[in-house]
């Protein structure tokens, strides 16, 4: 095991004890939602942060999976596992069909293409009323159950969501630290140089696009069977933008950044509720401040903090105990 896995293990251990330290169950809900966003942001960071390909339509894959399993299990009585499998399959299949033509576009055009796709899917959720329930949403989705075990309490669901998030994080980390991860980062800076070295850039871009859609689809399926209700607004353009913000604010090409971004941007609005009416102003100000002072994202901030703490500890250790508490200079 190397340092990277040790970090993840420590994180998993912390995540396992957190539910026992919470003052109330309300925070559990927020943590479940941030776990879902972590899955989405980690997947999107593979596409955006590593491969450098923008997607402004990721909420569509999130929603397609949620609606697919919601309709199949809620309306048609499929078992939950089959609904989820169908949701993942449909979402990734659509992602592949979209990726093939769209990834021939670059930069702003790719952003526009994915944006258009996201809006079309959103309109379908709203207008295909017989299937989706339209703007008022789709109700009656069963809770997650596996082999007869129903995950009905928030505490149980917390472990399901964060277990999935940590597993998917591990897979993403394994991808990043492989020849494929290097090829994706190469595509980010120079597709020309990457192709000279034998990287089939188009194929790799399609792969990572579909993979990140798969991550979004896992998030969508887990969302549907947690809330047991889906409506179009959850999968709007605003959600796609929120996901991009999580990736950028957390730190491009940093998987931990994606986790930090997802946690921070899920908790921030909750904290800001106390100052209602001003919350949106403060929210904006905090985002601007982050981007001004932490261009590398929250991951960079955490790294700097860690470095400062480590050097402080070292200095404290070097000062030695006999001399007593040294001054903070």
């Amino acid at each position, binding site marked *: 095991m190397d340092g990277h896995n040790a970090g993840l293990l420590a994180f998993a251990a912390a995540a396992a004890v957190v539910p026992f330290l919470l003052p109330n169950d309300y925070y559990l809900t927020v943590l479940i939602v941030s776990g879902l966003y972590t899955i989405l942001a980690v997947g999107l960071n593979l596409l955006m942060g590593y491969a450098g390909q923008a997607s402004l339509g990721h909420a569509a894959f999130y929603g397609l999976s949620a609606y697919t399993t919601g309709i199949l299990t809620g309306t048609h009585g499929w078992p939950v596992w089959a609904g989820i499998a169908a949701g993942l399959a449909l979402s990734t299949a659509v992602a592949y069909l979209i990726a093939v033509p769209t990834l021939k576009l670059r930069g702003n055009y790719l952003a526009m293409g994915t944006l258009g796709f996201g809006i079309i899917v959103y309109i379908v959720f709203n207008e295909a009323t017989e299937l989706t329930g339209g703007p008022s949403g789709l109700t009656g989705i069963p809770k997650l159950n596996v082999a007869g075990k129903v995950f009905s309490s928030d505490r149980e669901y917390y472990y399901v969501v964060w277990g999935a998030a940590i597993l998917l994080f591990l*897979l993403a980390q*394994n*991808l990043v*630290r*492989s*020849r*494929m991860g*290097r*090829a994706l*980062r*190469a595509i*980010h*800076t*120079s597709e*020309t*140089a*990457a*192709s*000279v*070295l*034998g*990287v*089939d*850039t188009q194929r790799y871009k399609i792969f990572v696009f579909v993979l990140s859609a798969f991550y979004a689809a896992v998030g969508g399926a887990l969302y549907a069977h947690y809330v047991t209700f889906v409506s179009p607004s959850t999968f709007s353009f605003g959600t796609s933008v929120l996901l991009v913000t999580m990736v950028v604010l957390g730190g491009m*090409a940093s998987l931990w950044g994606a986790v930090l971004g997802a946690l921070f941007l899920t908790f921030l609005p909750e904290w800001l509720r106390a100052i209602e009416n001003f919350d949106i102003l403060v929210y904006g100000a905090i985002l601007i401040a982050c981007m001004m002072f932490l261009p590398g994202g929250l991951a960079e901030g955490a790294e700097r903090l860690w470095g400062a703490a480590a050097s402080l500890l070292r200095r404290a250790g070097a000062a030695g105990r006999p001399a007593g508490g040294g001054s903070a200079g």
Partner: protein
Amino acid sequence: MSGQAHKEMYFHGDGISLRFGGVTALSGVGFHVRRNSLQAIIGPNGAGKTSLFNVITGFYRMDEGEIHLDGSRISGLAPHVVSRHGIVRTFQNLEIFTNMTVLENVLTGSHLLAGYGPLDFFLRTRRFFREERELRERAEGCLDFVGLSAHRDLPAGQLPFGSQRLLEIARALAAEPRVLLLDEPAAGLNMKETSALGGLIRRIVDRGITVVMVEHDMDLVMRISDRVLVLNYGEVIAGGTPAEVQKDPAVVAAYLGEE
């Protein structure tokens, strides 16, 4: 086929023409590069040297002509397929992966030399670890070869310009090419660096790699090349050993203007 003829026919292009609308960038260009030799391509600005590289590596689709390497046709293939045939190039305007360390850049060069797939890296199979270890050893060898070992963990963008040129060469070598195309490797280097580069390029040839080099530095070209091809206005105007080419009246006219 006799040994000598085979050697002559190792890497060759015939009748290559490339047009952009009404502009002819290359017109019936042919070249023959012997295995394990250093072929320079020179010519005034706009002669079509880099266009020829772009045609060879598949970035431009030529209008006429064919290119063969060791008996197999490589013209008309996509860039990433051309590199699978063992042709790798560097760039006049560096294309370093600035979002990676020096070592990671070189590791990326060996992309095709590992065969492990998604299952291997997702599940961290034995094959993954074995091949990654091999890539790392090869990459460190290449960095050592160009003299950049000490900087291997530095972000590549922080290297000075001259070292970035060397890094591009190390990255290309990590692909274990049969043919290495160097696009103006001495551009932007000082005299000392250029001199060291000349030695390095000769050592690359000594490793058994065929090198084709576009270069403006005539001292360097004449000192290290085995053969020189001269282009002007998209046509071959001369070819031969450095001594032959220097005496060729057509070459003198192209560079100095006719009397």
